[in-house]
């Protein structure tokens, strides 16, 4: 009996940290994926909105469609800030929008500078870098990672 009781303690001492670590990993990775999904939506919808910024004067002068670079860039940053406001873990959405990488591609065919995706029409390409703070994995020293999310949208209404 004494011998059996000792084995249980041994199991408890050895397995509990492992179980806790697995649990923390599961929780934080799920949270990370959820955050990445939120950011993806935010960037994606910002580029889609900005892809309506048609350069109307150029269209009348050439008959060709292209984006207004200044207007499309401003629209992207504006809607990035709006979409990131209220997202958990983004304390300063204005700063994230202001520092986002935004490229307006009017010369096509071309490649998205951030994702290397093929572009056959004028497009808005955007990329943000946001820090993500782990909830449980911080116990083992893994506190913050940087998430990079990119999206592009071609000209549309």
């Amino acid at each position, binding site marked *: 009996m004494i011998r059996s009781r000792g084995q249980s303690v041994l199991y408890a001492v050895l397995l509990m940290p492992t179980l806790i670590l697995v649990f923390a990993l599961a929780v934080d990775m799920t949270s990370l994926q959820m955050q990445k999904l939120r950011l993806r939506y935010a960037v*994606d919808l910002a*580029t*889609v909105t900005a892809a309506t910024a*048609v350069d*109307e*004067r150029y*269209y*009348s*002068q*050439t*008959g*060709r*469609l292209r984006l207004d670079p200044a207007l499309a860039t401003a629209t992207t940053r504006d809607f990035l800030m709006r979409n990131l406001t209220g997202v958990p873990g983004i304390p300063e959405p204005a700063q994230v929008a202001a520092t986002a990488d935004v490229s307006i591609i009017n010369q096509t065919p071309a490649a998205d500078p951030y*994702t290397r*995706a093929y572009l*056959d*029409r004028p*497009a808005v390409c955007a990329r943000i870098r946001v820090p993500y703070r782990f909830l449980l994995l911080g116990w083992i020293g893994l506190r913050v990672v940087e998430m990079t999310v990119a*999206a*592009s*949208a*071609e*000209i*549309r*209404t």
Partner: protein
Amino acid sequence: MKPAATAAKAVAALGLGVALVATGATDSQGASGSVTTVSIASVSGYEGHAFVYAQVSNSTFAFPAPTGTGHQSPFFSEWVAQPIASPTCPWIWAVYVFDRATNRQINTPPPNSPPPNFGTTTVLCASPTATPVGQPPQADAAARLDLDLQVTVSPVVAAAGSTSRVSAVLSNALTQDLNLYLSMAIQDWAVTSWSIDFGDGQMATINTPAATSIQVPHVYQAAGLYDARVVAFISGHAQAAVYDRYGTVHLLRRPFSVEVGSHAVATASVRPSRSYMPPQAQIGVVPYIGLPIGAPTTTAFRHIDGLRGALTSLSVQLLILREGELLINGAPRGFGQSWLTGWRLDGAPSDAPRGVGTVPGASHRAGELLRLQWNAPNHILGGQARDYVVPVTLFVTTRFPDNHVDSYSIASSFSVSVNFAAESG
């Protein structure tokens, strides 16, 4: 010279086509009982020349009382040469009237009158070779107005149906006469009206007072030779001056009228065959998202991009490939100038909202916007780009170099590429 003899002489001098239109004679009872006769012969001519002859005569030579004669009138007069000369009148003479008792001039110039001023109306510009001084008394004085009318048609040979110009220019020569007792002058004259017979049955009358030339456009519709005739109707006044024994002038003013005509041959050649080659043109469009912005562009396009799902306004322009051309007898005679007057959408209805987009089949004026919308390819499914051909009929008017105007309907089209990339990522 007697009036009747003058007129007869004039008729003889003119020969054919001359008619004696009017002869007037007026008598005036002189101060001494003598008879002064003024006669005017207006001789119209229709072969380019006419004249008016005016004559004043006095059979007694009693006016004025010459210096040193036995007339014991209280005054006497004499011609005095004046120290004034000009290129147009190198000899000027004036009648000075004196009081016989005091030998003082009684018709001196007004004190403040600028020179030359002789105080009377008896200042005369005589011929440098025939002065009134020292000449024997003459029985009459005469004046003559010669009128010449030249008629031309230009061009000399014009194509039937084209515009010719009938021109008439009236020139004149004036002869005035005076002597110690009498003067005769054509005081004034002017054309009162013109009559034009173009020779093809058409007539015209022009009332242009004082004009001595006319130019009238006319179109001979058929080939042939035409005798274009122009007659000028002229009215005026002749004035005779008779001096009585006191040196006082008596004016006798008489009206006259005369006609002068002439003609020219106008040749109208066979009307040339004219063909009007229609312009070759096609549609160009300038696209706008929504309403036009900024200054209108001068460049129009045959192919444009279309923004899927957006109402697009299109300014319809005329792109000339080759202007309309005038051919006369098969030879090029210049290009015309074409412009767009309207257009009509001939295609199927677009995806534009009802009441906003352009409806096919209706005619529109130039300057109205063509409003179309394309919703395919589907914005959810995405897919390949889709090309549309938009047929449009253009209504074009062309003005050719001979001002002939024709209107044409030209079927044309432009193309639109619409695509939509659904993916983003």
